[in-house]
């Protein structure tokens, strides 16, 4: 409950003004809270006379957190390959582990592994727990969850990270619920709080309009799913040493209540967007499906992937798998060229970590220019054909 010290309150109204939830009002010179209050605590900080207070003492702080040590990464493996996000997690996990002066471990679940554990060591892991069982051949929430829950209970890592992929976002919440600990979804930034040593987990919320930093101070492990293609993997180093630990589970732990009949990979006829070095993206400024021909032409010359804003996808100029942003893919190419895209926040969150961003837009005030490395104010129907012509000449010479 939000406590209001009626004596201390001077009725200044700062809390009322700043409340995001319309939950606090000054009535007869004193603040009053209503049912909308989410106990977010921002008013407590804003109150200059310290009249507001949230009683957090009810939380169980007696648990011994010192028993928990080490950073863990769930190394997603499917259809014979480790998901790239596993290496990205090892990259950020290495930093966190070094800062905490603890070991970094990876957990590998599946069947018929070859050198995957070694790849994870080369990617930064000190230890790899490997559960290789026929019952883990296909992903199931039950079996994968049970094995991970058992391992966490046995070894007590302080931090557990997984990719915010279809698989990670499906079974990790069950693991966290079973362990009765906190889980932060789809993080884009992770850091250690230099003061308390807690994990600072930052993630977009409200459709990407807002960022929030979340902590889990009184429970362990601290768990996050992390958005793919945001963290940087380490350079693979095969001289790195690590320990491989086989894991055996009781048969009933790898039973699943859900039966996998078959697991289908859908072939996409396009360049894999998330792995392309160069991406050319088009938005509403292309005006119609024919406009997209310019994008395709440029992409072909640059051997690039083709992306689009939601506006272009919604208009039916290009199918959904090409959409980049909050509700589409996240990409992080060396060069991202966006043409006729305004730069709405929901698009930016999907491409802002690209190394070089080139924006072409006829509106000099378009927000896309705030993230661009190179900005071109102009009409894409004039600039793109000229650019394409120059690139053609260049590729003929070479």
């Amino acid at each position, binding site marked *: 409950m939000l406590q209001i010290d009626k004596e201390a309150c001077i009725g200044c109204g700062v809390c009322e003004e700043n409340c995001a939830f319309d939950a606090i009002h000054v009535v007869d010179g004193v603040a009053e809270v209503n049912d909308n209050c989410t106990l977010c605590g921002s008013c407590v900080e804003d109150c200059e006379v310290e009249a507001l207070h949230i009683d957090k003492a009810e939380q169980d702080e007696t648990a011994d957190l010192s028993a928990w040590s080490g950073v863990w990464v769930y190394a997603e493996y499917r259809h014979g390959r480790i998901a790239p996000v596993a290496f990205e997690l090892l990259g950020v996990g290495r930093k966190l582990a070094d800062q905490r002066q603890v070991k970094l471990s990876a957990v590998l679940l599946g069947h018929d592994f070859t050198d995957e554990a070694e790849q994870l060591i080369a990617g930064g892991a000190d230890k790899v727990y490997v559960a290789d069982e026929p019952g883990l051949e296909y992903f199931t*929430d039950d079996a994968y969850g049970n094995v991970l829950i058992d391992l966490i209970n046995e070894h007590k890592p302080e931090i557990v990270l997984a990719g915010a992929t*279809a*698989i990670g976002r499906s079974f990790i*919440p069950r693991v966290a619920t079973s362990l*009765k600990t906190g889980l932060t979804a789809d993080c884009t930034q992770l850091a250690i709080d230099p003061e308390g040593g807690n994990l600072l987990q930052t993630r977009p919320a409200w459709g990407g309009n807002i960022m929030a930093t979340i902590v889990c101070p009184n429970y362990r492990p601290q768990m996050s799913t992390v958005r793919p293609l945001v963290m940087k993997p380490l350079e693979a180093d095969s001289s790195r040493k690590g320990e491989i630990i086989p894991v055996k589970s009781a048969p009933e732990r790898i039973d699943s209540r859900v039966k996998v*009949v078959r697991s289908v990979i859908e072939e996409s006829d396009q360049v894999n967007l998330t792995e392309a070095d160069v991406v050319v993206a088009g938005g509403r400024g292309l005006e119609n499906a024919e406009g997209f021909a310019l994008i395709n032409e440029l992409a072909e010359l640059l051997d690039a992937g083709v992306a689009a804003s939601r506006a272009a996808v919604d208009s039916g100029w290009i199918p959904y798998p090409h959409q980049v942003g909050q509700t589409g893919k996240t990409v992080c190419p*060396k060069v991202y060229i966006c043409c006729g895209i305004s730069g709405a926040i929901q698009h930016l969150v999907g491409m802002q970590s690209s190394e070089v961003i080139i924006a072409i837009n006829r509106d000099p005030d378009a927000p896309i220019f705030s993230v*661009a490395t190179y900005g071109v104010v102009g009409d894409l129907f004039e600039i793109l054909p000229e*650019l394409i012509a120059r690139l053609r000449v*260049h590729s003929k010479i070479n």
Partner: protein
Amino acid sequence: MNIFVCIKQVPDAKDVRLDPKTNTLARDGVQSIINPYDRHALEEAVRLKEKFSGTVTVVSMGPPQAEEILREAVSCGADEAVLVSDRAFAGADTLATTYTLAQAIVKCGKPDLVLCGKQAIDGDTAQVGPGLAERLDMAYVTCVRRINDLVDDTLHLERMMDDGYDVLEVKLPALMTVVKEINQPRLPSLKGKMKAKKMAVTVLSAADIGADIKQLGLAGSPTQVVRVFSPEFKGERTMITGTVSEQATQLAEILVEPA
């Protein structure tokens, strides 16, 4: 079949902005709606009921005004509506939310099937569905895009994956979360609207669901939000100026040898 659908009232996310000066949410004129994914969950529940008979109960944890979306759900085909509402629920993260919803559902009967949306558009966590299944000790499938059949208590369905889809079978009781591709939700019917107007929404408090107060709201939430802020960008840019031809030449140079 006893079907429960969890629905959440959310602000229409496209209207929400952080005021850069005060660093607070600007919510003027923001509409409250049924979380869009939950409409698809409700539609799928109503279709299953129509095909295999049963009852559909919509459940929402939220402040008193969440009653609006429960009535709307009834107008779209739900039979019963339950509002789980208490000041003690404030500040709940997904762990406390799943505890509260599970207590409420068990209080209302024995579910054969629980449906949730893939995620809520305010928090975007997608954690409540799987967490709720764990609380109810149920099998679950996330991101269901299609129910192919229900034969002898076994659901045959397809779940979306990042690289394709999985074809699955699960025996009831079970929980599933659904994606938008699963169906096209219907509009309220006239009969439904009449029913929604007249019907009594059951309201359950913390005491009514027999909840352990320590597991509710802020007290029962391991995670805490310590900071909210607007996304910021690096913003060091070079503008490429000149005539169209000059601009194109410079761009070509950059692309041939990216800096």
